């Protein structure tokens, strides 16, 4: 089997369940068995962090890692923060090669994606799919923007001032 692994790189979000889509893309790619190891890696808020993801690839026996940014455009997270985070990991592990791929960017399949998505659009009054999903994935994290709303339990001992301004 190849010694190449794949990391899908994302910013991370405070909203419970916001990372579930990225895991879904990783699962869909993993089953194709084109890479020795497939994992997600986050810059902020969620784990595994990008450096933890690299460590996991090393454990899995990868010598080359491709990092695909889960971003539409190469903004500063992709052009500055990601290479910086990876450089630190590479210093610790000189034997591993890490290559950053292009972000999603423009692709003609994105118009197909939008067109397909619209066929299952719902009335705006019924549109609560994401808050419902977030509640299902609720970790009771006081930093989640939905923390304390109906259906998202409040944890004992968390003070309001520990929560970020939403």
């Amino acid at each position, binding site marked *: 089997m190849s010694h*190449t692994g*794949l990391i899908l790189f*994302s*910013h991370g*979000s*405070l*909203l419970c*369940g*916001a*990372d579930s*889509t990225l895991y*879904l*893309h990783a699962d*869909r*790619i993993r089953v*194709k068995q*084109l*890479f020795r190891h497939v994992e997600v890696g986050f810059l902020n808020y969620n784990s595994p962090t990008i450096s933890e993801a690299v460590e996991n690839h090393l454990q899995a026996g990868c010598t*080359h890692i*491709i990092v*695909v940014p*889960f*971003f*539409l*455009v190469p*903004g500063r997270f992709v052009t500055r923060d990601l290479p910086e985070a990876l450089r630190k990991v590479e210093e610790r592990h000189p034997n591993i090669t890490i*290559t950053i*791929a*292009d*972000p*999603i*960017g*423009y*692709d*003609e*399949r*994105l*118009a*197909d*994606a*939008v*067109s*397909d*998505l*619209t066929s*299952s*659009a*719902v009335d*705006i*009054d019924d*549109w*609560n*799919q*994401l*808050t419902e*999903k*977030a509640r299902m994935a609720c970790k009771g994290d006081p930093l989640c*923007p*939905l923390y304390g709303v109906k259906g998202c339990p409040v944890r004992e001992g968390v003070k309001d001032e520990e929560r970020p301004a*939403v």
Partner: protein
Amino acid sequence: MKSALLLLAHGSPRPTANRPIERIAEDLRARGKWDIVTIGYLDCNEPDIPTAIENCVAGGAGEIVVTPCFLHAGNHVANDLPRILKEAKIKHPRLRIVMSDYLGSAPQITEILLQRALSILESKKADN
């Protein structure tokens, strides 16, 4: 009554960052499935979402299909966008507004991510 497709984007202080979304809008316009295809920005750029909706209504739209062109189901998609659209609904009670799932959830995104990775593998092979 005309049909409208409204793509919701975050917006960016760097104009080039909006190019992908503008090109998706151009592609969808060329397909002719909707009479109006337009973009509304949450932040940084014009038109903002309420203005984009007003433009659709002024252009004769009776129904607006909204797709959040966000990759993440973060706070913007879960809370901000539905709130803005509900406000528009109150202002235009006869306007039908429907909202689709967000772009990041589409299976085509998996294909694109995989292709970005495979093109690195191919260029490595070409180097060897």
